[in-house]
């Protein structure tokens, strides 16, 4: 199990086993006073994915998510009032976290080049975005256009957006995108397999795609709008992280609802708990439906008050969006000058 190496990492909080073992229904090795001693940390996490039964037992043993409570918490955080200096800081942080995206059948080299130019210099003295996100065949164009400007190239892969293809095709598509120069791969999970309870199939696909990624970072898209329940969102998050995801991402942007605040909240709780349990940090990327500065700031508040400071960097949190950037730029200018400029003062792409 090459993806579980981190379980041995020194400095892993001792008590992680309490949680993970309870969820997995496994017996604790020994109880010494109040402290829980876990003798074989690696074994238990490996056990989690050792069989379909064990994986199912683990995922179904995760604490449930109460929909009403999760919605309320997200709504409450949505009332945070971010003004003046905090707003200016949040806008620049949000810009630096944007995965500027174009995923259309009509995409062309010209469109991608234009987007890449904007990704590097969004306008004024605004920071550059984190990455551009394109279809695999346009990766070479993006790589060339960006040419070492420090903006990453992300490519969707694995029969995006439906994921309805064979594993061979998915792996081949991934390999192709990586060899064309993609720094990051945004894969989709097999929602059909997930919803029919075949968790091992989903797990193995992620493991295979992760292997095909090599050094490239893997973002696993859960398509939470199709998973429907919050329990499923938490299970899919853990499944992806167990299988080696570097990032978990809400949506393709092709299904509605996409990245709703409660879903992002639950995924942030999942990465927080996963790091507590294993010591490994996983990033989160809400994507789809984030169009305004207000939406973006609400997302940053969710990060700030759920996962905390460690996730408040483009390395660990991204915003997948296409139209968001211009609104961020417009609000940025409004803060600086005190007035709004018309839409024509912000470039289309």
């Amino acid at each position, binding site marked *: 199990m090459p993806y579980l190496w981190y379980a041995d990492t020194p400095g892993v909080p001792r*008590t992680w086993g*309490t*949680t993970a073992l*309870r969820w997995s229904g496994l017996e604790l090795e020994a109880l010494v006073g109040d402290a829980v001693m876990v003798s074989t940390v690696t074994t238990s996490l490996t056990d989690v994915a050792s069989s379909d039964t064990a994986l199912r037992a683990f995922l179904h043993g995760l*604490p*449930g*998510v*109460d929909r*009403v*409570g*999760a919605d*309320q*918490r997200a709504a409450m955080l949505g*009332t*945070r*009032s*971010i*003004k*003046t*200096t*905090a*707003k200016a*800081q*949040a806008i620049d*942080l949000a810009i630096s976290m944007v995965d500027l995206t174009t995923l259309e059948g009509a995409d062309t080299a010209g469109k991608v080049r234009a987007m890449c130019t904007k990704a590097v210099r969004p306008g004024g003295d605004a920071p550059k975005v984190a990455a551009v996100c394109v279809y695999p065949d346009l990766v070479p164009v993006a790589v060339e256009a960006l040419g070492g400007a420090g903006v990453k190239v992300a490519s969707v892969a694995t029969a995006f957006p439906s994921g309805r293809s064979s594993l061979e095709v998915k792996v081949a598509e991934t390999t192709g995108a990586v060899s064309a120069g993609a720094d990051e791969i945004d894969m989709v999970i097999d929602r059909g397999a997930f919803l029919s309870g075949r968790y091992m199939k989903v797990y193995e696909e992620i493991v295979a795609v992760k292997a095909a990624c090599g050094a490239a970072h893997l973002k696993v898209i859960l398509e939470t709008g199709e998973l429907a329940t919050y329990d499923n969102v938490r299970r899919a998050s853990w499944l992806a992280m167990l299988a080696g995801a570097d990032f978990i991402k809400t949506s393709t942007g092709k299904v509605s609802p996409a990245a709703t605040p409660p879903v992002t909240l*639950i995924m942030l*709780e999942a990465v927080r708990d996963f790091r507590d349990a294993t010591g490994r940090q996983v990033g989160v990327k809400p994507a789809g439906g984030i169009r305004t500065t207000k939406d973006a700031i609400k997302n*940053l*508040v969710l990060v*700030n*008050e759920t996962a905390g*400071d460690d996730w*408040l*960097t483009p390395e660990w949190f991204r915003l997948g969006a296409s139209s968001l950037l211009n609104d961020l730029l417009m609000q940025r200018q409004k803060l600086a000058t005190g007035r709004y400029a018309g839409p024509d003062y912000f470039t289309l792409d």
Partner: protein
Amino acid sequence: MAIFEYAPAPESRDVVDIKPSYGLFINGEFADGSGTPFKTVNPATEEQLAEVATATSDDVDRAVQAARKAFGVWSALPGAERAKYLFRIARIIQERARELAVLESLDNGKPIRESRDVDVPLVAAHFFYYAGWADKLAYAGFGGARPLGVAGQVIPWNFPLLMLAWKIAPALACGNTVVLKPAETTPLTALAFADICRQADLPPGVVNIVTGAGETGAAVVGHPDVNKVAFTGSTEVGRTIARAVAGTDKKLTLELGGKAANIVFEDAAVDQAVEGIVNGIFFNQGHVCCAGSRLLVQESVHEEVLESLRRRLSTLRLGDPLDKNTDIGAINSAEQLAKIRSLSDLGESEGAQRWSPACELPDKGFWFPPTVFTGVAQSHSIARDEIFGPVLSVLTFRTPAEAVEKANNTPYGLSAGIWTEKGSRILWMADRLRAGVVWANTFNKFDPASPFGGYKESGYGREGGLHGLEAYLDV
């Protein structure tokens, strides 16, 4: 320093116009009181907000006479006409919501987020709800029942305007008139409500507001021409009132203290349960009679829940109540702060472990950090006495039966919370808990349609819903 610091986001004070002094509201007019005026302060800054008249027993007598006179006219109005006034009041409350929320936060110390999103919307909802019943009492099962007459109402400082609404809305809907005494530390929104009554052209004398301390309250309760007494506050004062009313024909409802158990089972949705624990005890700085002040957590998840809880508490934002991002505001008075301090110190000296998140308290004003006591036993005073502050006592249990036993092992019985993903367990528990309100997978949720009230020393009678009408009718 945190990466993402929220800049101050204060709600503007300009929406309120606080006068230097306030009189009593009797027979539709503001009048001077005969007692020595008292000061009301902003508990977050100790700044004086206004001077308020003290009503003596003579003043109370005038108010009761006005209410008695108005009772004839008011009770004779068709229900639909009374409803019009109540609907009008409800709409004015909505229109003046921002002003009322700011005023409430200034006078009480509660965060503007709560007064804006919880208190004031619920106040309007209560008036709307009971306005709807005014002409349908027969359909509520009270056909032919007559109103009681003059209601003497004494309310606490924790939800000043909301408690006023709980008292006044059903009383007026049923055809009674009222003399209400707000708490001496939070009279301002009641006086703003008096202005709303004038704005709504409510006939003079239907609502009278008399301000003052305990003596004024005693005069209201003890007045021979008061037909109904309604009180919300401490069990101690409740007992005094019950004694005062005993042997008279006054009808009495009491809504008193509580020491509610918030019970978390091992199969609970942990993150939401933690939110529920926080909302249960730190909502309104714990100044809530139904606060979930005893956390009963199943031993098998004790560590896990406590770890999540501590992490969550360290994100709570304590400070300026008018800042829109504040989660925990000020303690309402120096007196209450002293009480919370002494009970917490007692908890520590009795051997419970005290913990608070790193949390800077402002220099001025009355403040107490969110506090959690672990290792608490049923026999500790902090597990038995109502603290009425942001202090949580954590106890453990092993089985559902033990949870029920421990939850019920208190002289109080106002509310309880159950956190489990198992529906059948919720029903099993709810059947056995001796508490007036049992929340399942939520806490501190209020709705005008839902009756509220206690078992045992938490009082008697119900407010809210259909049951709330009964307390104001001769049935």
